[in-house]
């Protein structure tokens, strides 16, 4: 609670976690299709 009252020390942990999750999900989907494609050459 103290942290959110002080704008200088604010760290957007939720946004960072959400961003990391989106990037990870994108990588899994993209490389999933990519390796299927390579196996069918």
């Amino acid at each position, binding site marked *: 609670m103290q942290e959110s009252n002080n704008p200088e020390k604010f760290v*957007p942990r939720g946004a960072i976690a959400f961003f990391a999750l989106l990037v990870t999900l*994108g*990588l899994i989907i*993209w*490389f999933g299709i*990519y390796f299927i*494609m*390579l196996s*069918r*050459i």
Partner: protein
Amino acid sequence: MIDKFERNVIYTALLVSGLFIFSLFYAMGAKKADVTECLPYDKSYETARVNQIDAHTYQIFYVARMWNFEPSIAYIPVGSEVDLFVTSLDVVHGFNIFNKNTNLMGVPGGVSKTTVKFEEPGVYKVVCHEYCGTGHQNMQAEIIVNYPKK
């Protein structure tokens, strides 16, 4: 002065984009993934045929129309490299070989070309995967690789 979180997001985006671009060039270069071409159109592509160039190189000229592909069956020896040319006489059709890395469009007035190598014997189903009307689900062809022998 750029915010440190904003800077980290930019670095991450650049890193991931670089990884994607490197992977594409790796597939095209080291793995020799064929990139589909669009060729200049002429009337000769409207005649479906199979040409043998040498013992292991073939050309198949596919003509798509509602709702079949010509030639509907093509016989190819194992280990052949096949240049596929696809055009359409009516609407846009899809051209997908099941379990191969082939995804073309048959466009009226256009020619799509790709090259596929058939290392394993079997019956390779070709299906239309672009909705083209009421008979779309029955639109298919076969590439028979050394089975039955002919």
